[in-house]
């Protein structure tokens, strides 16, 4: 029926309403096709760190890149890193990948119950760890083992945590990969996604309150941006102008759900920052130099009192979500190989080779050396036991619930026979 108030002019008769459930373009059985991914061609200049966030909107939709397809660095985001720095980064990334392979094998052979790799995402944790100071506090998710490795933390200690053995500093309480290493300024990882984002903001507020110089940095996956804690963090970070780095690792997948399900189909994750008045930068997460450059920019901004930055690292989760996951059930085989931003280790390697600072022979020798390093660490870690073998005493189960053991827990421990 026509109405006289103008409603008819806007759409006529009332239609049944609809809603949309995002679906990735390809599913198992079809050929992978990433042709829809349009990488911004225009190079974004590096803005001064005191640029007001409302002048930075295009950075949330563009892509900060340094390495070109020719493996050369260009543009004013080029952080001008020395060959030694780059080789150190390459070493940590390679060590991270080999560590992952070894630990996944440990899981497959029953030495631990569970493992999560970060294959394809190594540049993010490694370059960021190298851009941050060693005592800046990291609030990671479970896919930033590269932070510990780049900080030179003991591989044996990490492995003991994965094997839940008698050398496990968490006394066999945590899921493997949920590391804690206070000495490495690495916050205890929660199994509840996203909770650490606002905690990092609180930590950074505390650091600023004490007149400390240590920053906080936090990481979530693209899927986790939908959690309330993500929004708490952005609100608090913006309101109190907190010196914190809020990193979103957009690896395209949250277990079987593609990034569109978390809202990545309608806008970018970096653009979430705009509504809060924070700067948001989208960065090529497979470009070690770009990750380092963008992180340094955010750090300089935070240290100069301009507050938080949201960094979206655009990358691809090349391996399964975890050792319990089989991605062939939800995405086509071979998709990772088509990822238009390549593999981060290969790209940094080629960059160094192109600059005459590295060679295939050196790379092979490094791979062999690090494989031995991992093997030796693995042996040492296993000497402390593997899952189901030597572990901490069940008596320790009652420790650390509270600082002091209360009466009811003492009684319960006695009931268990300890």
């Amino acid at each position: 029926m026509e109405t006289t108030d103008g409603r008819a002019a806007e759409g006529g008769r009332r239609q049944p309403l609809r809603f949309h459930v995002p679906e990735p373009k390809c599913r198992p059985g079809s050929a992978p096709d990433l042709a829809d991914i349009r990488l911004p061609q225009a190079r974004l200049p590096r803005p001064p760190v005191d640029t007001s966030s409302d002048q930075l909107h295009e950075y949330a939709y563009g892509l900060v890149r340094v390495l070109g397809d020719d493996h050369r660095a260009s543009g004013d985001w080029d952080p001008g890193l020395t060959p030694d720095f780059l080789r150190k980064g390459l070493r940590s990334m390679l060590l991270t990948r080999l560590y992952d392979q070894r630990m996944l094998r440990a899981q497959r052979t029953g030495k631990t119950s569970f493992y999560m790799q970060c294959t394809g995402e190594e540049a993010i944790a490694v370059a960021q760890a190298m851009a941050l100071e060693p005592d800046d506090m990291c609030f990671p998710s479970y896919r930033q083992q590269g932070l510990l490795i780049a900080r030179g933390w003991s591989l044996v200690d990490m492995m003991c945590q994965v094997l839940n053995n008698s050398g496990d500093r968490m006394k066999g309480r945590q899921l493997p990969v949920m590391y804690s290493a206070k000495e490495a300024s690495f916050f205890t990882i929660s199994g509840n996604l996203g909770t650490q984002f606002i905690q990092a903001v609180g930590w950074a507020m505390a650091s600023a309150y004490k007149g400390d110089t240590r920053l906080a940095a936090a990481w979530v996956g693209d899927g986790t941006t939908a959690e309330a804690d993500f929004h708490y963090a952005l609100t608090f970070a913006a309101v109190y102008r907190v010196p914190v780095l809020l990193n979103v690792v957009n690896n395209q997948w949250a277990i079987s759900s593609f990034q569109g399900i978390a809202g990545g189909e309608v806008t970018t994750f970096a653009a979430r920052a705009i509504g809060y008045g924070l700067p948001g930068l989208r960065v090529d997460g497979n470009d070690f130099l770009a990750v380092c450059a963008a992180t340094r920019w955010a750090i300089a901004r935070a240290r100069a009192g301009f507050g938080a930055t949201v960094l979206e690292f655009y990358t691809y989760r090349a391996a399964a979500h975890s050792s319990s996951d089989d991605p062939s059930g939800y995405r086509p085989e071979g998709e990772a190989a088509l990822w238009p931003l390549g593999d981060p280790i290969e790209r940094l390697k080629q960059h160094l080779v192109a600059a005459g600072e590295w060679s295939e022979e050196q790379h092979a020798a490094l791979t062999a050396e690090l494989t031995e390093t991992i093997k030796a660490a693995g042996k040492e870690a296993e000497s402390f036991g593997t899952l189901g073998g030597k572990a901490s005493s069940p008596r320790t189960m009652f420790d650390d619930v509270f600082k002091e053991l209360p009466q009811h827990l003492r009684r319960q421990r006695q009931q268990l026979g300890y």
Partner: protein
Amino acid sequence: MPSMTMIQALNSAMDVMLERDPDVLVFGEDVGYFGGVFRCTAGLQKKYGHTRVFDTPIAEGGIVGAAVGMGAYGLRPVVEIQFADYIYPAMDQLTSEAARLRYRSGGEFTAPITVRTPCGGGIYGGQTHSQSPEAIFTHVCGLKTVMPSNPYDAKGLLIAAIEDDDPVIFFEPKRLYNGPFDGHHDRPVKPWAGHPMGEVPEGYYRIPLGQAAVLRPGAALTLLCYGTMVHVALAAVAESGIDAEVIDLRTLVPLDLDTIEASVRKTGRCVIVHEATRTGGFGAELSAQVQETCFSHLEAPIERITGWDTPYPLAHEWHYFPGPARVGEALKRVMEF
């Protein structure tokens, strides 16, 4: 000694701790400039500045999450959740994070935070401003749960909570903010002035967490209560003339089992009173503990007097509320068993 309301005593506790320890911070919705909707933080921002006492966005999960991060750094944040009814948006940060940081990190990281929140009914707050959710927190390993019944305890317990290295949920019965209460809604509320429990020292003192108070020694039965119900219980005892031993638990976790057991073994009878709903309430836990440890001394079944298993109904709140009459009947039933 000055006479203080519970609000003034709580304010004084925070004042003392802000003064003594630069690592203490106070924040929450409206707590800064305005001093909190119940005025518990009045004057503190003016005295200590807005980096130590400040307003937050309306985001309970954010308030507690930020406090957890600050606690991990080494500060002792004291946060206010405006009403206990609004603590649920912060549940994940409380139960999964604050409560387990120490455990999951093998002692590396801790969350020495205090979460203050007004609870309970009796002020016509309807079903969204009257809840007593303490039992939910007692079920969470790693949290301490406190509920004072008077200004003197409120100050000493809050100071102990702030100094505690574990996360503490500190429930403040808002019916008692301004004066004691005898459970009779038709009688005017008496001021704390002149009440022995309203005598509060100005300076520092603490009441250790985990110690119950025997408020009235007695031989006939043991009455376990906390918060507002302490005053209802005392009224019921006075009106019934039964020689009950009234124990104010003060801290639910850790619980003072020794005091409870010693009393029930002596009296042989036990009545539990709380304002929260009955099913799964803390009374169930108390009853089980007493049964497990004192069964052979019991001469009557344990009785629980509680709020009903309904949300708090505004117009009927005095029917919901366990008053002295209901408690008195229970005392008689247990004595006559």
